[in-house]
């Protein structure tokens, strides 16, 4: 049977308009929950991008005791130079470290430091970030070594924070998505109730089941679609905002490191829209199954 597109569009529009308050509530809930899902996805991809950046520049510093003898220092230096997974090392004298400390430490702490009490250091870049731990384990107990520093733990702490944040986003979004689905289901249920006379006449004159169902199906679909389109716009806006906050003069800042590619952004929006359409379809399908007796 040729389904009249004109009829379906007209009926769907009428339904949406009649139930406009419920429709707005459903669309907004879908939009808020999917915006959260989108934000979580942005965060996840941003963190992955930043991590690559962070680990690429990872540096391990072997701090020598200020009292370390020249032979101890040269032994450590030659051992480091022989390691196959160490890219290269630079020796920083006590004086050089003292000057660096003058820039990094607050004056109150720095005043307690003299060039002779400052440790010298050997700064190495491993081939792969995961060798930082191997260097730590190998040198931390060697004679003359004061300590081995690696930014790995800081990266881990940051990653953990981001993961927790992501899970919070996703859990809140899941609860909201569920309520969006229920709201859509309820909107369709009300539409079915409002049109029960029409449905009974349609059955009487021989309208096929799909012809009766389609306007209700498309109503749920449109609610999901509009909600997810709003969410996709919010995701784009959020990305633009963060992008504008990232200072281009400071390529090392976290926001710049988290910057997403165009494809990642498009992918996120596609996922958001697909979830919205799914929520709308599933909500209306359940309502039709349970409440539309054809």
């Amino acid at each position, binding site marked *: 049977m040729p389904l*009249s597109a004109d009829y379906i569009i007209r009926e769907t529009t009428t339904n949406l308009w009649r139930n406009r308050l419920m429709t707005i509530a459903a669309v907004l809930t879908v939009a808020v929950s999917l915006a959260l899902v989108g934000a979580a996805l942005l965060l996840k991809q941003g963190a992955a991008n930043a991590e690559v950046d962070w680990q690429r520049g990872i540096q391990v510093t072997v701090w020598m005791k200020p009292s370390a003898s020249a032979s101890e220092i040269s032994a450590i230096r030659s051992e480091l130079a022989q390691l196959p997974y160490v890219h290269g090392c630079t020796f920083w004298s006590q004086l050089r470290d003292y000057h660096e400390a003058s820039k990094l430490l607050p004056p109150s702490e720095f005043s307690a430091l003299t060039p002779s009490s400052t440790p010298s250091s050997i700064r190495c870049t491993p081939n792969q970030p995961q060798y930082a731990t191997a260097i730590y384990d190998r040198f931390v107990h060697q004679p003359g070594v004061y300590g081995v520093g690696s930014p790995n733990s800081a990266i881990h702490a940051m990653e953990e924070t981001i993961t927790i944040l992501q899970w919070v986003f996703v859990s809140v979004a899941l609860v909201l998505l569920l309520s969006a689905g229920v709201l859509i289901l309820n909107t369709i249920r009300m539409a079915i109730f409002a049109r029960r006379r029409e449905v009974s006449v349609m059955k009487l*004159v021989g*309208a096929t089941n799909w012809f009766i169902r389609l306007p209700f199906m498309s109503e749920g679909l449109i609610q999901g679609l509009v909600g997810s389109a709003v969410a996709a716009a919010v995701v784009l806006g959020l990305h633009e905002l963060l992008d504008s906050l990232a200072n281009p003069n400071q390529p090392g800042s976290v926001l710049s490191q988290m910057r997403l590619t165009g494809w990642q952004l498009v992918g996120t929006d596609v996922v958001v829209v697909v979830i919205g359409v799914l929520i709308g379809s599933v909500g209306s399908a359940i309502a039709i199954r349970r409440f539309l007796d054809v």
Partner: protein
Amino acid sequence: MIRFENVTKVYKNGTVAVRNLSLDIQKGEFVFIVGPSGSGKTTCIRMLLREELPDRGRIWVAGREIIQLPKWRVPYLRRNVGCVFQDFRLLPNKTVFQNVAFALEVIGRPKSVVETQVPQVLELVGLAKKRDNLPGELSGGEQQRVAIARAFVNRPLILLADEPTGNLDPGTSQGIMRLLDRINRTGTTVVIATHDAALVDWMRRRVVELDQGMIVRDQARGVYGIDANTGPVPRTEVVARRSS
């Protein structure tokens, strides 16, 4: 056109609505099904529309056995069977024209068909001038005419009517009967379930009387009660009269 063969219908609460009923209605016939409330008239109509399934027996409508009909084919059965009810079942927010057009639109008929068929059928039922009125602005008789127009616009082979004059005064009811008679003359089989004795007596068409779900009388050119002059007519005689 319609055939019931040993049909029995028992509702879940144990009420026997129809008991071992067999009935033949030929193409183009005009039949009254009469009997007191609860005699099984409405159940027969509902089974013909396949809104109810019998517990035993078989039913044919327009040459098709409808008990075995898959569920998805039921809408196509209903396109061949128009139906009119006591409460009209019009859509109050649609005009007369839109109410009738709705029946064609929802079975996917193109706009051109709607635009030619609907005025024709409104002319037939005498409501051409009220095409833009809402049902609330019409009298009961006029509303029933709209309902008949809607049931007939798709030119069904069979027109069923369940107490079509139940809400109407005698004068208006006669008008509705004349209209159904006109429709019958186009070749459509008309089956009316009613307990409006005056109308049945006035029309003098075939009468099938039900009592407690069984046929107690099947009379050609019958009246509502037992005809005082001729008495009940045996079924064999009915068939003989019809074929003559």
